[in-house]
């Protein structure tokens, strides 16, 4: 909202000049401090000098040029006559104009000099509104009123030196979309008198109706609860808008259109009430406010023919729709340069109805912005009365006395609030006098609830109940110590503040006007928290483990597409193809939410490679989104006047997709960097599986790595990571390995790129179920070490051999196999085609003695025997 200071000062009696930078800055701070955030303070008119009021003495038409040019003789009553070249044609001898003399400065640092042009010397320039930054009009020069004093400095004459505040008005503060609202706030802040512009220039009985005025009725009172029509007859449509009004409109960012339209816009800016001017001659029969009928159309002022929705709120006459109520007028009844009789409409429309309509037609206007945020329902009579009075006075017409009105009386909002509620909310003592004073300043009527001092059981909402119990007064000596803690106030909100509905709204008025800066800070009290959950700690641990292992965390785009699923080679029925679809995605190419982290992290990898990095290992922790099968299509909108029931909460939950947290890693180039120590080691499937192991180890769960085939991995280099419990339960946590070459090609990644992806929700659920750690007994008798080499067929997984060795050793009696590690892997001539040799170190210990060589051999043999039984292993050289 852009408003010039001069306009605000007309109603708030503050003594400050636009040249007083400190004074202006103080006002700007005050506006921001009371909740009207000033985004910019723009001095205007300060950059204009040397422009004077001049009279055109005569005009000579020059011919022979590409366009008609005038050579004018002008006077500024200083005894000199000057000659000026001018391309405009909208003036005549005798007109007064704004003349920039040689040496004048115009906005934007544009200097005027005497110059030779079109074969003549031009001693200055006759200015258009645009050139003086007081309007957009550049179709001709600005013709000034005949009484403009010759030779006067134009800046002084027109009051151009001003300051424009650009205020960011939050959606709750509809009242501040007007001079009326902002000036009131300034006056309160500065504690100076305020004149309400809605009380100015009204006829004696502003609400009197008259059959002389064009008739109006309301068909749907949910769309509109009040509408007023008034008439002015016999105005001269050619009357120019007064310069001062034009300047104010321009400063507020409004284009000057015609006198009738300018008057309605001017009053909308001043009062906050949108007004519409109809050409009376183009109305057919009584005006009716109603919803649209199927198939109706309306061409609005922006020359768009709109097909109307049955919910649209319309102003109509017998010809059909003539205006989108509170949003935009129609072309057919627009005032034009031949409109002598004008009907002014002012109404109070449903905020929600206007909001829906303007959204539906993607048509936001100054009017709809105000109606959406709430307009004073008492304004239609006043604003329309001021409009007709002003239009008649300026345009030479006659006001038809009285008005035509439809609608009902609107009951004011009454709120019961405990007198000490603002104090209790703010945490400091304002006292009854201050609370009442502040509420009255914003326009509330404040009364004491009868009997409230004795009986507090009025139950009127927050702050109105009994003072908080439980010895609070003793624990917080600065709270609740109010001069009238037992009193309830009955507050009537002013009609211009439809945002005031609850005690909390009233408390906010008191607190903001008393100043947020005065609220003390109370030291934080310790509260009883339990710290991070196991899941939260696990997430941090595995993130640190991956980073410590050389992975860089990235946060990738969560949006995806069917094309990504194709690139991943996912088969038709794959669960990962079932994705949440967005109604209005950021990009139409990516309308889905991710079901796997892989495409996003692949693209981030490619971006890093594109920036010249070759050895890149990345990881991401993030949610994926999997619609539940059989989920209801709609998450219901529950009531808000009570807590939802368990069933209602369950209905919301049923509609939402599953959103498990995943972790993914991808790696390419060297996993171990090359350097003076030698060549690097390329990252491969082992690293992907190791990254998965790292995550699982952080969880201290028992897990196994198994060969699997799963897109998008290489069918021979893909491992499933399976969590197992001692009870034999198993959960698939995810997959790891080298990517399929087709996937690598589809994402443009280097050959042999490897990746892993795990479902952390599975891991954390299993970890929650696992219970506390049971550490081993720390036996201190000596360790006995045995090495065995086993030959098995190539296809036998090492994990199976290890499992069998451990099982065999465990069955060998009172000896514990403390650890088992692979120290050599050999394939080649000595073990034969299709076989491999796995060499393990076994470490045994007993709880209560030093093991004998015999016991150790026995345990080793038992382990080998079990491996032979389970996997066909043959001990090499044994």
């Amino acid at each position: 909202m852009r408003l010039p200071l001069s306009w605000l000062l007309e109603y708030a009696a503050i003594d400050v000049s636009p040249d007083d930078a400190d004074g202006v800055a103080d006002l700007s701070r005050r506006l921001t401090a009371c909740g009207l955030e000033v985004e910019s303070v723009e001095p205007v008119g300060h950059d204009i000098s040397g422009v004077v009021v001049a009279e055109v003495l005569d005009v000579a038409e020059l011919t022979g040029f590409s366009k008609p040019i005038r050579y004018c003789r002008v006077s500024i009553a200083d005894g000199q006559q000057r000659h000026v070249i001018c391309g405009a044609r909208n003036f005549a001898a005798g007109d007064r104009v704004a003349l920039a003399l040689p040496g004048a400065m115009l906005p934007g640092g544009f200097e005027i000099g005497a110059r030779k042009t079109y074969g003549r010397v031009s001693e200055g320039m006759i200015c258009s509104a645009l050139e003086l930054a007081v309007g957009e009009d550049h179709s001709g020069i600005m013709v000034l009123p005949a009484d403009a004093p010759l030779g006067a400095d134009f800046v002084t004459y027109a009051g151009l030196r001003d300051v424009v505040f650009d205020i960011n008005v939050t959606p709750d503060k509809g009242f501040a979309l007007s001079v009326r609202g902002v000036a009131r706030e300034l006056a309160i802040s500065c504690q100076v008198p305020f004149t309400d512009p809605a009380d100015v220039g009204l006829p004696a009985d502003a609400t009197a109706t008259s059959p002389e005025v064009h008739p109006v009725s309301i068909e749907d009172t949910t769309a509109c609860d009040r509408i007023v029509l008034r008439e002015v007859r016999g105005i001269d449509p050619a009357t120019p808008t007064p310069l001062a009004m034009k300047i104010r409109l321009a400063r507020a960012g409004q284009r000057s259109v015609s006198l009738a339209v300018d008057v309605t816009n001017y009053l909308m800016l001043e009062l906050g009430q949108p007004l519409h001017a109809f050409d009376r001659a183009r109305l057919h029969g009584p005006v009716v406010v109603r919803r649209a009928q199927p198939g109706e159309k309306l061409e609005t002022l922006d020359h768009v023919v709109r097909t109307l929705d049955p919910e649209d709120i319309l102003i109509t006459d017998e010809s059909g729709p003539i205006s989108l109520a509170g949003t935009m007028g129609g072309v057919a009844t627009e005032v034009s340069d031949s409109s002598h009789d004008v009907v002014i409409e002012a109404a109070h429309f449903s905020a929600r109805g206007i909001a829906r309509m303007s959204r539906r037609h993607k048509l936001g206007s100054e009017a709809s912005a105000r109606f959406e945020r709430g307009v004073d329902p008492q304004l239609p009579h006043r604003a329309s009365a001021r409009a007709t009075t002003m239009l008649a006075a300026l345009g030479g017409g006659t006001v038809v006395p009285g008005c035509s009105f439809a609608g009902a009386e609107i009951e004011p909002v009454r709120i019961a609030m405990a007198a000490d509620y603002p104090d209790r909310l703010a945490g400091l003592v304002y006292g009854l006098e201050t609370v009442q004073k502040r509420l009255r300043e914003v326009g509330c009527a404040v009364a004491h609830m009868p009997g409230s001092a004795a009986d507090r059981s009025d139950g009127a909402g927050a702050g109105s109940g009994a003072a908080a119990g439980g010895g609070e007064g003793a624990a917080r000596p600065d709270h609740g110590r109010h001069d009238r803690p037992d009193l309830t106030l009955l507050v009537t909100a002013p009609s211009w503040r439809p945002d005031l509905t609850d005690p909390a709204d009233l408390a906010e008025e008191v607190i903001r006007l008393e100043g947020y800066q005065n609220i003390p800070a109370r030291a934080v009290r310790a509260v009883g928290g339990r710290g991070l959950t196991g899941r939260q700690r696990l997430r941090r641990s595995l993130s640190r483990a991956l980073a410590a292992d050389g992975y860089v965390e990235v946060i990738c785009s969560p949006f995806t597409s069917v094309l990504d699923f194709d690139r991943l080679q996912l088969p038709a029925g794959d669960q990962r193809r079932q994705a949440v679809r967005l109604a209005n995605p950021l990009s139409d190419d990516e309308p889905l939410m991710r079901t796997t982290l892989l495409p996003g992290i692949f693209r981030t990898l490619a971006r890093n490679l594109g920036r010249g990095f070759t050895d890149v290992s990345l990881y991401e922790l993030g949610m994926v989104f999997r619609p539940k099968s059989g989920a209801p299509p709609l998450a219901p909108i529950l009531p808000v006047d009570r807590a939802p029931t368990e069933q209602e909460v369950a209905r919301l939950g049923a509609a939402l997709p599953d959103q498990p947290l995943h972790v993914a890693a991808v790696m390419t180039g060297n996993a171990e960097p090359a350097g003076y120590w030698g060549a690097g080691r390329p990252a491969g499937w082992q690293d992907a599986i190791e990254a998965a192991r790292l995550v699982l180890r952080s969880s201290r769960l028992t897990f196994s790595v198994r060969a699997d085939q799963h897109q998008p991995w290489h069918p021979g280099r893909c491992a499933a990571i399976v969590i197992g419990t001692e009870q034999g339960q198993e959960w698939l946590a995810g997959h790891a390995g080298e990517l399929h070459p087709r996937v690598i090609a589809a994402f443009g990644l280097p050959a042999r790129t490897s990746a892993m992806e795990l479902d952390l929700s599975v891991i954390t659920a299993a970890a929650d179920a696992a219970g506390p750690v049971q550490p081993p007994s720390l036996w201190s008798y000596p360790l006995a070490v045995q090495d065995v080499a086993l030959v098995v067929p190539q296809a036998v997984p090492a994990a199976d051999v290890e499992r069998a060795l451990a099982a065999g050793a465990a069955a060998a009696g009172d000896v514990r196999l403390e650890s088992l590690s692979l120290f050599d892997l050999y394939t080649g001539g000595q073990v034969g085609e299709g076989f491999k040799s796995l060499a393990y170190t076994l470490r045994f210990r007993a709880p209560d003695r030093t093991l004998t060589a015999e016991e150790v051999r026995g345990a080793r043999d038992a382990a080998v025997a079990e491996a032979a039984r389970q996997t066909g292993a043959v001990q090499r050289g044994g």
Partner: protein
Amino acid sequence: MSAPNKAYDPVEAATLSAGELQRMQADALAAIAAAANLDELKTARLAHAGDRAPLTLANAEIGALPPAARADAGKRVGTARAAVRAALVQRQADLEAERDRRVLVDEAVDVTLPWDRPMSLDGARHPVTTVGERLADVFVSMGYEIAEGPEVEAEWYNFDALNFPPDHPAREMQDTIFVAGAEPGERSGMVLRTHTSPVQIRAMLTRPLPLYVVSPGKCYRSDALDATHSPVFHQIECLAVDEGLTMADLRGAINAFVEAMFGEGLQTRLRPDFFPFTEPSADVSMQCHVCRGASAQPGGQPCRVCRSQGWIELAGCGMVNPRVLVACGIDPDRYSGFAFGLGIERSVLVRHGVADIRDTLEGDVRFSRAFGMEA
């Protein structure tokens, strides 16, 4: 030799004889058939269908023939080249299928082999993660617990329960990304959460009172990406609901938080703002932690971090609107609450002097690496 000759040249035209073309075609087909893998096929393609391949050169000679002979020769060369092209396409497909069928099987390894990496690269965590954890830990140290919620959220949690009335401009300001309904044009009642505030509702509905929670998480808005806005970003919010909480408690929590994150002795400032779920509402600024406000004083050195304003806008806050408490079944006459929330990316930008939010999004390893393991 590639320029068309007007004169008939019997030597050169010999390459266009039927026998010669048949031989070239046979050579090409044999080479293609003999290619045992995709690399060999690439070599064969170059030799028999590349720029210097015999059939390509023969094609260029057609122009040298007498006009009467051109059509016939052109047809024969065309047929031979088409046959070679078809054979290449077929062999390519065969070899790819072969690779998928055999080579990928041959390449099978024992994925269960243990593996230890002796040395590793320079890993790092993302500053949005580590700064988010630090922010959360400040509250956890005050006794708050971390609460989490879904990113695809029901509208009721994201808006209605937070006192955003339907069709109110406040709802429109959030630039919401909606989940599509079952049929085009239908509603789903679900959105990508526009803030972490729905977690407040979930916490109030499920946790016992008094309640002190902090909720970090990812949020979405259909904002255009620029230096200070990202459609996907992270927020962290704290919520306290207890008996007798006041704005003074809110200020205390904010001050403690600013001290922990940005340094001791920094002033904070509240100014009125509007959020439907708090009343009163305020935006929080803190004194610039770099210049401590000096840049805004007369004669002060310019400050890049606060753009010489002396203050940095940090967060939004307020007292929980009693309507929100009611929607969560909490008695507003007994309990009051406060909430405040801020953008994690914004905190990273402010705390570490990052000029462009896009640096936090692109996943460039240099950015995360600069932060190491903890921010």
